[in-house]
């Protein structure tokens, strides 16, 4: 298929240099691409869509009337990352995860970083994600964030920037795994020829990490799901299947004498570790949100008593708040005495007067985000918004400054993508997954989300984003 007319534009393109030369790590792939006819490429794309459908790789979109299940479009042109580039991402993410874990342990216990005035106390202690019931708690093995899915983007300068630390229940890992299987079928020889680092052992590593949280020789592990109406239900059942553990929901569990049991056909059976995919405050109606129908009454007491391990630990949300994000470079320096390996995006905190004045003045050039919203909701992209929207957000910021941060608009890098008009560049981000078990490990792969609409920067699946398989080369 032809790529001659491809324009990388003003953005950083992962496959082509501005002069139109193929970057070295894409050479083998481009050869295959050129050999395939356009018809063949569209056929491969069609086959991939069909496979996704019959696998039932679906996610649910809230408030969408067009039926509950949707397929996350998988583009068949992969995003390829050279080894050297990956090494830097890997070491940067390990450093960051390590520091954030120390930070969590600290703010729920000694609070040294607050006492030393590195971060304003009220920013942490008044956060709605700071869970008072967790104060004084050290989770099993001292690990808080077992599974992290950090979002990165590459800007015009060819450098990666951290966009968001997702320390709660990051989703999408099943797409990383299933997409790889589908793309392997599309280019069977290429994998063998070029050498792509495998991701397929993720479920085994995840299981090991979870088992490590219990001192029993053969702990019983389960995945706790809110149920089939959750947008990531496919992933919950997929991971349970791949790990060979039970997928449980709140109604399957009961707590007696601070011990958690599953209700089975043969009576009650104790469970030791839960990979929970339910938000903190829904875990236990007795400890948190009393209206929660999803949780298990008494679960938190059992957790405090050390009879059940939870991954991630309750309370991690406070550390991936968008306002705390601005302090992460300081957090790394404070605990590790190291310079951050990966860049933060410069962030203006609307809670601070000077920053706020700058944001109100320059809102048309900035991206404004709510500090604790996810999924691309509650967000303003200054350069793409109308004057009315600017004014609306100015008001919102003035009324509730602590709720907002702003960042310069980043130019997200592009990857050639198969569209009806041929191959065109589309913006992408990158979400690698980090497991914190006996040690911290970054899985050599990622979910690459792609904004399928021409020129769009919003990659969220709930708003028209798709995905790409991500190859990390040997």
């Amino acid at each position, binding site marked *: 298929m032809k790529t001659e007319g491809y324009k990388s534009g003003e953005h950083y393109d992962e496959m082509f240099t501005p002069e139109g030369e193929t970057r070295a790590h894409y050479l083998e792939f481009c050869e295959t691409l050129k050999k395939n006819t356009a018809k063949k490429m569209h056929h491969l794309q069609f086959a991939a869509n069909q496979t996704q459908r019959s696998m*039932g790789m679906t996610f649910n979109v809230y408030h969408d009337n067009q039926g509950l299940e949707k397929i996350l479009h998988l583009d068949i042109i992969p995003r390829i990352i050279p080894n050297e580039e990956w090494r830097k991402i890997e070491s940067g993410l390990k450093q960051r995860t390590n520091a954030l874990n120390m930070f969590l342990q600290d703010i729920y216990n000694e609070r040294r970083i607050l006492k030393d005035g590195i971060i304003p106390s009220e920013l942490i202690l008044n956060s709605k994600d700071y869970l008072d019931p967790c104060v004084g708690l050290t989770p099993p093995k001292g690990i808080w964030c077992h599974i992290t899915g950090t979002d990165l983007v590459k800007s015009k300068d060819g450098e990666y920037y951290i966009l968001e630390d997702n320390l709660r229940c990051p989703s999408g890992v099943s797409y990383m795994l299933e997409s790889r299987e589908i793309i392997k079928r599309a280019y069977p020889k290429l994998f063998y020829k070029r050498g792509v680092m495998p991701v397929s052992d993720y479920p085994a590593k995840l299981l090991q990490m979870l088992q490590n949280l219990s001192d029993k020789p053969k702990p019983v592990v389960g995945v706790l799901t809110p*149920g089939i109406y959750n947008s990531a239900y496919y992933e919950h059942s997929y991971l349970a299947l791949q790990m060979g553990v*039970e997928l449980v929901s709140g109604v399957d569990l009961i707590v007696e004498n601070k011990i958690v049991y599953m209700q089975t056909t043969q009576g009650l059976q104790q469970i030791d570790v839960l990979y929970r995919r339910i938000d903190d405050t829904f875990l236990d109606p007795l400890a948190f949100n009393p209206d929660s129908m999803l949780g298990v009454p008494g679960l938190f007491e059992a957790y405090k008593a050390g009879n059940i391990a939870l991954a991630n630990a309750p309370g991690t949300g406070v550390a991936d708040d968008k306002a705390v994000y601005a302090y992460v470079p300081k957090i790394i320096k404070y605990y590790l005495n190291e310079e951050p390996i990966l860049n933060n995006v410069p962030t203006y905190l609307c809670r601070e007067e000077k920053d706020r004045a700058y944001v109100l003045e320059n809102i048309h050039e900035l991206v404004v985000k709510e500090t604790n919203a996810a999924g691309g909701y509650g967000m303003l992209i200054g350069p793409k918004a109308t004057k009315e929207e600017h004014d609306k957000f100015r008001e919102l910021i003035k009324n509730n400054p602590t709720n907002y941060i702003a960042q310069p608009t980043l130019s997200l890098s592009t990857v050639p993508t198969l569209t009806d008009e041929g191959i065109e560049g589309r913006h992408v981000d990158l979400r690698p997954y980090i497991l914190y078990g006996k040690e911290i490990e970054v899985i050599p792969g990622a979910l690459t989300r792609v904004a399928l609409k021409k020129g769009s920067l919003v990659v969220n699946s709930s708003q028209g984003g798709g995905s790409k398989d991500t190859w990390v080369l040997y």
Partner: protein
Amino acid sequence: MLSRVANHIYWLGRYLERAENYARFIDVNFNLMQDLPIDLKEQWMPLVAATGDLDLYNKFNEGFDSKNVLFFLAFDERNPNSMMSAVKSARENARIIRENLSKETWEKSNELYYMMQEGNEKKIWKKEDPRAFFEKVKNQILLLYGIADSSLARTEGWYFRQLGQFLERADKTSRILDVKYHILLPSEEEVGTPLDFLHWMALLKSVTAFNTYRRVYGNIAPASVVEFLVLDKYFPRSIYYCIKEAENCLHKISGNQGGGYKNSAEKAIGELRSKLEFADVKEIIAFGLHEYLDNLQVKINSISNQIDSNFFTIRDNFTKQTTVQE
């Protein structure tokens, strides 16, 4: 195994079997129609009557033409027992417990769902001869069984699905047989005529029993057909065979190796099995076939209820989140 999961597996088994049997139901009539003398009108009412949903049908339709009946039995989602409803429910149950199924069995039931959707879009019920479609659906389900048979471990989950499947099949065989009761012959004198035989043959064909029956009994005789479909010890769709298999599943689940019963579900099914085991077809006919089958269906229902209370809702304070399935 989690009680909730066992529950969904059991119903997955039932719904799949139900969908397959509805495809067979529809086949009875098409088989019949083709052999009927031209002056005789095709009868679609008996089909609906045998499914037990006559009242519901009349609520939405007037008269019994083939298109309305086909739509009602195959695609109407307002009918909770239609093929479409059964396939949707089967897939929904499978989706909930996907981690307990093999990848292939899940994918086949997912494809089955899309197959039905496609049939719905193509308005299959308006086709002159829709049998190819129903054949395809039936084969998809059989393919799923085949894959499961050669890939799933014979552990609890397997037996719960089999249990659902065999109970459902016992019920449906009794209903297919009952179609004959509802089909009207032009007059009393027609009993035992070629037309009467045509009916019985169509019935046997719809449960893939025709050739086996021939080999065992030779000639078509009503009492023999009844004996074959209700009491045969070896035919996998006979009611006795299904009940015996279902009983075996319950024993595997509870670990019962000594016979008798370990719980109330085993007791109920054991009693029914032994009744069938020692029944004589003459007694059945003397009792009245329709009444006898009705009776059987009630007993199968009560066994299903016993299974529910023994395995799925054992905890006193267990809040039922799932809707009741039937």
